[in-house]
């Protein structure tokens, strides 16, 4: 029956493209999560009145984050080609999309992390300080656990944005569902391929949103 609905679809290609999309988004998401938290913490801790208050570092990190967040992703992909060749050794394939995906998504997530950390009750941080906690203890036992629902809902939003980015990364030969929809579906006028790729991307997004919402609500004990 499926073959009647999608006559032009080569299932092997669809499967391969789905795997590529999941691979690109998965690895990029993991790296974005870590890098975003590090940058977000840096933004938060160096801001005014915080433990590592430093206008200099804050302004620099802030500027870097804003610049990479502002460049349209498709342009960032092209700009990063030389960098990608140095790091990955090639500019083709799913792996080659990773640097751009991470550099595009991490600053976006870093801002969300910063907002999440700002919402941690100042009194609780003060209480931890009054108990003689080190900054590292405050980070790992107060700031991150207390902002975890915000961090998780932020990474959910970022993950969905990343899926969108992977589709664009197809344009520089990274593969994936976006690439398939464009080259197979659009350029060869096989609308059913485009349709199926879209459905699959939607499915992935729904699943991510569902998991993200579920974890967030489980974590939030407020």
């Amino acid at each position: 029956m499926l073959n009647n609905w999608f006559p032009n679809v080569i299932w092997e290609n669809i499967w391969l493209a789905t795997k590529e999309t999941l691979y690109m988004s998965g690895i990029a998401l993991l790296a974005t999560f870590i890098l975003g938290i590090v940058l977000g913490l840096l933004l938060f801790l160096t801001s005014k009145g915080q433990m590592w208050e430093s206008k200099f570092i804050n302004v620099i990190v802030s500027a870097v984050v804003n610049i990479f967040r502002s460049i349209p992703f498709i342009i960032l992909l092209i700009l990063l080609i030389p960098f990608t060749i140095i790091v990955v050794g090639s500019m083709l394939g799913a792996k080659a999309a990773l640097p751009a995906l991470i550099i595009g998504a991490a600053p976006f997530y870093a801002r969300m992390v910063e907002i999440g950390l700002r919402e941690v009750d100042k009194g609780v941080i003060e209480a931890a300080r009054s108990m003689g906690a080190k900054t590292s203890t405050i980070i790992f036992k107060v700031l991150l656990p207390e902002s975890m629902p915000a961090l998780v809902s932020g990474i959910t939003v970022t993950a969905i944005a990343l899926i969108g980015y992977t589709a664009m990364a197809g344009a520089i030969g990274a593969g994936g569902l976006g690439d398939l929809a464009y080259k197979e579906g659009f350029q060869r006028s096989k609308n059913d391929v485009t349709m199926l790729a879209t459905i699959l991307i939607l499915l992935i997004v729904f699943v991510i949103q569902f998991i993200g919402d579920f974890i967030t609500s489980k974590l939030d004990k407020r």
Partner: protein
Amino acid sequence: MITLSKVSKVFGTRSLKSQPIKAVDEVNLTIDKGEIFGIIGYSGAGKSTLIRMLNGLETPSTGSVVVAGNTISSIKGRNLRKARQEISMIFQHFNLLWSRTVHDNIAFPLEIAGVKKSERQKRVNELIKLVGLEGRENAYPSQLSGGQKQRVGIARALANNPKVLLCDEATSALDPQTTDSILELLVDINKRLGLTIVLITHEMHVIRKICHRVAVMEGGRMVEQGPVLDVFKNPTAQITKRFVQQVTEPEETKDTVAHLLENYPQGKVVQLTFVGENTESPLITKLIRNFQLDVNIVQGKISQTQNGSYGTLFIHMDGTDEEIAHAITFIKEQQVGVEVISDAE
């Protein structure tokens, strides 16, 4: 236990136009071991800043702060963190970690101090019993009432066996009944563990109920300090008088006295203040027997403090001026404070 000498804190302002704010101004203070010391003042009096200098959350601009042998005002880093484990703090808004259960919240300072897990478990159980939260170990703060949250706060503060407990408006967010139960818990802890307690509040009720000594702050300055009963007996500063009135006079006193002065232009309305043992002597009976006077009791109240009771009584005396003057002299001889009220102010 705690010594503050010439402590000032100035908050600089960024803009050049506005003057720097002097939050605490040349405060000298000594608090003894095992004492419950209260600092009272309205908001903005500098009491929050002052208490935060006791554990180094704020550093004084000038002067020195010594707590439990550590010069808090000058130590930094590891030493300060170590010293803070001996100076605990509880807060108006409890400041519990919502992501941790009651048990884990109480265990938090123990984790900071590097106590082993098995010992942590034991200590947390002891503390839960001490503050009366058995059965709530696995609840999250959001599932607790305000009073229970503050009990968790107290248990958490006691975890590392501190020498000093700082209470930052610890009962201001609680209803009167819960306030009383928390205050009783603090007195109990003070007696049982010999803990020195410093508390700041804007409620004289709290001072009256549990403090041994009190200091009154206004505009960053310490305008008055002494044993609670003495301050109740002889408040000198205007602000202290107002605070004392909060607890010694029922709210409607002013109206009643005004009404009385209006209706009975003859005679005198007199405020008597009793302290300690003489609160229980039959003064009024003696007055009526010895003098040709009509005595009418207008209003009265007796308050218990940690070092004795304190009472005020408003009476209206009617008779000849001479007789009234004699009566007043007599009352003074009985070690009772007398103040003739001429108008309701």
